[in-house]
């Protein structure tokens, strides 16, 4: 029996990505970000989300994609997983769709240069539309960020 799950759709460049809706706390417009020194490049800093300080990471940078200028549609998606709360900067986020679990395939080895371990699968939404589902626990893997910090020192 295929299960249905709701995902928030966001874009990075031309690709469409999805995060399960229950992992997403809120979607915010870009606000002023305070840079935090001695952190990896993709950690853009921290923001004030209604009184709570939340780190923000640039998902492009996290995936090793080239950075681009953020436009009007850029958003910060606040996700909560692994006991962590983190904001993802994305190019846009504007859709919620239902995905049937039987349409999800395991990720191909290389997708747009992103290491496969960050992805939990690819969902075929329609004939022309593919949605890349994020593996949040890998994206938020702190072991990796600690390594990166130590490299930076």
């Amino acid at each position, binding site marked *: 029996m295929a299960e249905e799950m709701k995902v928030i759709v966001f874009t990075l460049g031309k690709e469409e990505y999805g995060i399960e809706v229950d992992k997403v706390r809120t979607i915010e417009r870009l*606000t002023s970000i*305070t840079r935090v*020194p001695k952190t990896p490049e993709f*950690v853009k800093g*921290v923001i*004030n989300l209604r009184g709570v300080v939340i780190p923000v990471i640039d998902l492009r940078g996290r995936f090793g994609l080239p950075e681009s200028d953020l436009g009007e549609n850029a958003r910060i998606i606040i996700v909560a997983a692994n006991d*962590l*709360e983190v904001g993802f900067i994305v190019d846009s986020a504007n859709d919620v769709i239902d995905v049937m679990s039987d349409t999800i395939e395991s990720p191909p080895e290389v997708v747009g240069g992103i290491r496969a371990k960050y992805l939990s699968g690819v969902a075929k939404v329609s004939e022309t539309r593919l949605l890349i589902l994020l593996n949040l626990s890998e994206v938020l893997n702190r072991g990796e960020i600690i390594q990166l910090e130590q490299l930076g020192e």
Partner: protein
Amino acid sequence: MEMNQYLSIFIDEANDHLQSLNEKMLQLEQQPEDISIVQVIFRSAHTLKGMSATMEFKDLAALTHEMENVLDLVRNSKLSMNSHIFDTLFKCLDALEAMVQDVIDGGMGTGDVQDLVVTLQGIVKGDVGATAPATSQSTAKSSSGTIGSARGSIQLDQYQRSILSQSLEGGHSAFYIEVMVREDCVLKAARAYMVFDVLERNGEVVKSYPSVQDIEQEKFERSFSVYYITQVDEASLQESISRVSEIESVTLVKLDQGSLSELEETATNQQIKEEAKQETAAAIAKPVDGTAARPAASAPSSGSAAPRTIRVDIERLDSLMNLFSELLIDRVRLEQLASEVHRNDLTETVEHMARVSTDLQNIVLKLRMVPVESVFNRFPRMVRDLAKSLDKKVDLIITGAETELDRTVIDEIGDPLVHLIRNAVDHGIESISDRVKAGKSETGTVNLRAFHSGNHVFIEIEEDGKGINRDKVLETAIKRGVVTPDEAKKLTDDDINMLIFAAGFSTADIVSDISGRGVGLDVVRSKIIALGGHVSVTSKYGAGTKFSIQLPLTLSIITAMMIKLGSEKYAFPLSSIVETGSIPRSSIRSLHGTSIIDYRNSIIPVVSLSQLVDCPDFNDEQEEESELLIVRKGDKMVGVLVDEFIGQSEIVLKPLGKYLSSNLGLVSGATILGDGYVALIIDPNALIK
């Protein structure tokens, strides 16, 4: 009666009373002759009894009842405290605590109190034989002044008693009148007024209970009583009072010289019962409904009066604070809009709002802070018991109990402290004979200190005991495989002391033969580290040991110096700043690759904050004159070059979030400024190596 809604109130109040009982008992142990302390203890026990009875916690009520009987004898000087009574009462407190814990855990507050009850009854019957409370009339009278003031009951003072007896001599009649209004009476105060009106037309009221004021404000349940002098006879008096409507009953007792003193006693007993009912009602109802009647009885209680507080769920405070931060951001936005719109009335309103929100901010920020007292106050009792069981003499000196810490830290720090203090008394302080042999005073001292420093709170536990035996620690460490013999050679004394925190290192093997409690100091350390703190130990063999715990204020308010680096803002905790100023670039010299300056005739290093944080749009090398902060850690100082000072402000420390907290030496946290901007807080300790 639906009890659940009162349960949490009961638990909170019961804990308060238990705490106060513990404190006062310790105090009494120091000054056994001070009857006023007994009064306070008695009242607490009494209230506890009433509360428990109302909530139908029978065992609790039974035990407190027996305690009360003993205390009653003591306060009436019928029984003097001795160590047996103290021990029994302390045991009772422990039992009560266990029972309240049972209630917290959802039980019915049951406990095996039979033995204690028997012991207490034995104390009441024992040496003092027939002097049960009811027969202790003469003493009760001699101390009636204190009882009267303590209970606010209808005890007569000397003056009033002499008025009554003189009136009797003068041929007047004196009555003790108790009036009960009907249960469905709507305007109790009005009825009472009418009764007083009748009385005053026919004679004189000597004394009323509750006081006339309280009666006017309806601060009584259903009955009130008066001592009354009149020439009217009993029957017509009865009739005229009964004529007032909604009066259920009028009880008149005619007084003569003999009955005057006797009646006084019965009156007291009746009042006690009445008061127990009222106090319970008030204790339960008070936090729910602020206007609930509070009997006069509790008004004159001396220094022990509970502070007027209300208990709030900590999460609500969190959300209050968050909401408030949002309000601040809107305020800044409004201010900006007002300056664009140029309308006087708008500007004035916004300015007013700014003032109000500043005050509000101060209040909100301080709500979360709790004095460490709430943790410390359980230790005197603990040290007393411990010293007694180990047959040692120990003074516990507490300083800085008013130091405030965030509530979340307060909740967690108790257990580690218990462990360290136990250690100090058990393993640190020597036995009396050993102390004498070592040329020390018989009584050992344990100092428990708390103080603020920077954005940390320090808690220190220092004793003047035997100290850590360095060689023995090392020996044990090698034996247990904590360090290898080679490593051991390189260790400094401080390193060796720290070994006692290693896992599997029973403290018993280090400094004392007395058995440990099976929990190692490693647990203490991991707990403190989990709190984001740090613990260290210094010791002088033969002279004592000091444990120092450094705790962060996870969410707390500190005064900080705000500084600017180009477009970025940073905060420095003011407490570690010695001085601010500016220096010409030319006075910074280089010494072996390190920048140094001459500061008040000593050479101190300087660092550039903009370089440390890789500031993108500011570099002090381009400046001719630099703003400078002198920061201190212990006796070391360092100069920090910054761009510009913004000024002092009170800031709320916020954690940076778990994702970033791994390796941020330089930054100890963040704060949200009035305009919603997040500023990082620099940890001055990280600037000094």
